[in-house]
């Protein structure tokens, strides 16, 4: 149970980071923390303590297995997360070239 709670704490840290931090890079780190918290939670839903891989073999009775599907899906989700992070980091660097700052309160040409 405490594992799930820690997962929620991690998610909340990520959300806090996105909502409260002013530095673009810190916001990107917040996004990554949120994504990792979701991925971790996804793994946990399919995980059993002391479980084994669900590979069928002749002489073994299969009692306690780990669900492999979430792990395969999380692998995909991590790759997607990598693409998003790379793109946002690239945009943040271009923003820095144009505005000369990473402070989000000073980047405000768009309003209305």
């Amino acid at each position: 149970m405490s594992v799930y709670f820690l997962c929620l704490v991690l998610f909340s840290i990520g959300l806090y980071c996105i909502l409260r931090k002013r530095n673009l890079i810190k916001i990107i780190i917040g996004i990554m923390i949120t994504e990792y918290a979701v991925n971790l939670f996804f793994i946990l839903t399919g995980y059993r303590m002391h479980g084994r891989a669900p590979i069928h073999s002749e002489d073994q009775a299969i009692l306690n297995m780990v669900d492999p599907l979430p792990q395969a899906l999380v692998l995909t989700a991590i790759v997607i997360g990598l693409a998003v992070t790379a793109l946002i980091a690239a945009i943040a660097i271009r923003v820095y070239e144009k505005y000369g700052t990473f402070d989000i309160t000073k980047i405000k040409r768009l309003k209305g």
Partner: protein
Amino acid sequence: MLHNLLPLFVAVPLAAAFLNALIGKRIKGFPDWLSGIATFFLAGLSIYSVVLFKATGPIMYKVGGWMPPIGITMVMDGLALLMLVTVNIIAFLVSIYSIDYMERYTQKWNFYCLFLLMVAGMNGVIISGDMFNLYVFLEIAAISSYALVAFGTEHEELEASFKYAVMGTLASSFILLGIVFLYSITSTLNMADMSRELAGKSSSNIVLLISVLFLTGFGLKSALVPFHAWLPDAHPSAPAPISAMLSGVLIKSLGVYAIIRIFFSVLGSSPQVLSILMGIGTVSIVVGGCLALGQWDFKRLLAYSSISQIGYVVLGIGLGTPLGILGGVFHLLNHSAFKSLLFLNSGAVEYSTGTRDLKKMGGLKERMPVTANTSLVASMSISGIPPFNGFWSKLIIIVACIQAGHFMYAFWAVLASILTLAYFMKVQRYGFFGELKKGLAHVKEVPFFMKLSMTILAIICFLGGLLLIPGISGDLLGVARDAVLTGQDYAGIVFGAIK
């Protein structure tokens, strides 16, 4: 027959995007032709599927030959059919518009590559019958749209793109979290199988939590009012053809379509969710309309108006009655036609005059007759003036509100319709009518392909109302309405389509 054509909706734009990235740089004019032919093929295929759908009914494709619920499926039911027709026709018209418009930018092949990836992502979201594949396609469309918003790489574009990317990624995290919970209680990823599992269980608190997570995630994607802050920055900053795609079809296929699919087909529509949808829809209608009224930037005004019009769609769907849903899906189709047209008009004005500020325009009707007349058609459609298509769908939604006994919602919908008329009169008055401003005497009409695309969209706006004629209405709108109304019987339809 058709079930073998289904994967082409994703495969063709993906292959075209890949070819563009590979050899588009070397051969001049190749990206234009490739993208035009690919999207023309998709538009033709989507219209052909309307004909085939009439004969065969819902269609399912098993990816790799694996049987569902183990394997991945692609499903086309009535709602998906309507969305495919909408997305692919708009994509084709936007693609031919870009031939001339994108000459202002460098690296055209990159633009077409991202554009085709976005089309592939949207088509994938629509035909996917698998929850995780829906998420993956949604991310493909979203990531390419973040990059496209930043395509100009000026101050505003980059700022808007950063905001949009942060909000979009957060939305995706919420959606993934919803999928995790859904997987943990149903132990399957196939949407039809999920809906069968959930129908067997009594509703519990976890379904409520899942609903909240999906409503937040897809609400952010479709920019409904508490979640709308990124849209008025992101949509105007993109190049005009992309604004047309984002406002015209992206927020619908990633947002509204996914909301309908998940809340009606998978989770099953509960009265609480329906009333939340109606509430959010009405708030979006009014807030979007009021904010649009105060704008002087042409594209920003259109972006706020998108929030308002999406509100009508969600209100219609949220009513849950057959008439309300018919109005909702019809308004979705119409909005993609006239809002794309208006964004293309704003792009044409920017192309010729170099400004988006309504105060600096004036009297453009003399110099740019095609743009002015098509924008007049679009403005009248969106404000709900008969005989244009927007009138019929708004009328159906308002009548459905009254029929269901929701008089307050009907009142706000009528009021906001008048607001819409007011801000589009402002656009026409300041932009196209009146005296020609001094600096604008040299302005020329836009090139051929831009005119062609705007004219076709104006014809669609004009003739859109004909889709309601009995005999025709069943083929596209009727099947979409029935697909929404079937609710959790979606499972039976999908498994019944296994061949």
